[in-house]
């Protein structure tokens, strides 16, 4: 696969993930029914206590909570395995692999054949890393899979993020999808015109020129968007329509998230 096809595959993959998330967010499940602010605060609390925990079983328990939330939110475990667990395990697992052999500590065995000493502290350290990353990544992905993206962004206001940032984030997400389409079309047309094999310097020139064209298009788009905003009466003030409503169910789930986070913090110290 050449660099054009690889870039195309990256762009299409990102678009697929974005559309899949929007489909999942429409399903009827536990997390989908919650106010986005409740979800954001609750899941963020669990991610933070997972980072704070000093005991493996506590991090494992939080991972169990994440799996339970996924099942009740109708997110298939196969999707989680494909999108989170396997990639994280392959990336972080490879990084953590040498830790049992090079971390000083109490020797618990030796690697057959090579005779390298395996330490208890090294194993624990690798366990901490993999468990923490898997748990935090699962929780974060659940938030995105069960909430429309524009609701996630509006919910960020609960963390006191300025309205201006929320508006910029919303527009950025929107234009990512638009520019993804532009970039994909650009690379598709390039691929359809290529009949031979480009040499290294020529391939680099093509890739850099493509990025340059996309940059020029982006800045042109920014000017067009600005003109469109002005023509619709934009004078610099930004407002956010907040249609969120908190129900008794939200307060109950917030209490559940709070209790879980407090318990994990207490037992994980």
């Amino acid at each position, binding site marked *: 696969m050449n660099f054009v096809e690889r870039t195309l595959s990256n762009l299409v993959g990102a678009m697929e993930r974005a559309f899949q998330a929007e489909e999942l967010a429409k399903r009827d499940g536990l997390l989908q029914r919650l106010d986005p602010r409740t979800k954001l605060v609750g899941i963020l609390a669990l991610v933070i206590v997972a980072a704070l925990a000093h005991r493996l079983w506590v991090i494992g328990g939080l991972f169990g909570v994440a799996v339970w939330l996924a099942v009740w939110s109708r997110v298939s475990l196969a999707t989680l395995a494909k*999108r*989170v667990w396997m990639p994280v395990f392959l990336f972080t697992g490879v990084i953590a692999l040498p830790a049992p052999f090079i971390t000083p500590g109490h020797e618990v065995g030796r690697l057959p054949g090579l005779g390298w000493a395996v330490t208890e502290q090294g194993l624990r350290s690798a366990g901490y890393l993999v468990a923490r990353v898997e748990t935090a990544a699962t929780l974060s992905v659940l938030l995105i899979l069960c909430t429309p993206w524009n609701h996630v962004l509006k919910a960020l206001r609960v963390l006191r993020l300025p309205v201006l940032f929320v508006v910029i984030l919303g527009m950025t997400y929107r234009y990512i999808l638009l520019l993804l389409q532009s970039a994909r079309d650009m690379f598709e047309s390039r691929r359809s015109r290529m009949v031979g094999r480009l040499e290294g310097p020529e391939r680099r020139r093509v890739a850099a020129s493509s990025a340059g064209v*996309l940059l020029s298009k982006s800045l042109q788009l920014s000017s067009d968007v*600005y003109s469109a905003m002005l023509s619709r009466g934009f004078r610099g003030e930004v407002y956010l329509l907040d249609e969120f409503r908190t129900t008794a169910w939200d307060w109950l789930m917030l209490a559940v998230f709070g209790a879980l986070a407090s318990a994990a913090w207490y037992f994980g110290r």
Partner: protein
Amino acid sequence: MHIPDGYLSPATCAALYAGAAPFWYTALRRLQRWLNTRLIPLLSVFAAFSFLVMMFNLPLPGGTTGHALGVGVATVVLGPWASLLALSIALLIQALFFGDGGITTLGANCFNMAIVGSLVAYVVYRLLAGQAAITSSRRVVGAALAGYAAINASALCAAVELGIQPLLFRDASGAPLYAPYPLRIALPAMMIGHLTFAGVAELVLTGGVVAYLQRANPSLLELTAPAAPRGGAPDSAALSPDARRGLRPLWMALGLLLALTPLGILAGGAAWGEWAARDFSQAAARERMAAASRNMAPPLQAPRGLARLYSLWTAPFPGYAPSFVRQPALGYLLSAMFGCGVIILVFMLVGAAWPGRKIRGSPFYKT
């Protein structure tokens, strides 16, 4: 280089969020003044562009491919403040919606890639490109090396953050709680990849895009080319009165840190590895060294090299305690003010010697 959740301790994450906040605030204030209502569409679309550029697969010399960060391109076209905001927004979207980089580590990722990357790229580009013409090949080389330096500076920051985790955060059994590798492993592991593949990818992208823009749309390069021989208006990065006011939070943060320096007296013992040659022969100091080194007894005498080099230079304020000051807190404060003063003086001298402070505006910065 996108650090996921779980690799850094919450304390490190909080410190880096706090470190990034003044830069975000300053950048936003400065850009709001310059861009006014144009800020929102420009930052949104450029953040979207930065996001996409990170997905580009770049052919590298040797037949492999790699991904670039786009920090060099963003800085050369937008200037450092808009670049650091656009990249921070792109990193937030990546972390939130695409699972690339963590939520707790977002501050660290923004600090490393958006803030350090943009500032390093800007300084290197301005130094190397000098007053060369917009279409000069010197600008291409300057931009390429700026991208290379920026990504490596970012990687260095990330490596240091990862490498200090096992020194600072361990459980009761001594097992590292977060990233498990010390600096001696984290630094080469991170830097080898960035000095070779990732750095070259950034170099290829930045140099290539600047070369393309020189041919196709040279006006986009005018913002960060203040002294280039083409007409124009004053620019962003020059220190206008508004810009000076925009720096106020950074000065306030610096003042607060200066005022807090006497807190250093509260810290017991000495920092690991910062021992004096005479400490090796003093019982109390030896005990502290052994305790700090997991009960590993230090050598009976100071190592020969250390003993020889220790007296090579005597600091004017040894131990942050000028000899003419009796109060340790006052000594700390004076030392901090002296140190900051020297650094500010050096930068003012560099600034005065730097040609072409007045730089032109750019088509998309005009309001």
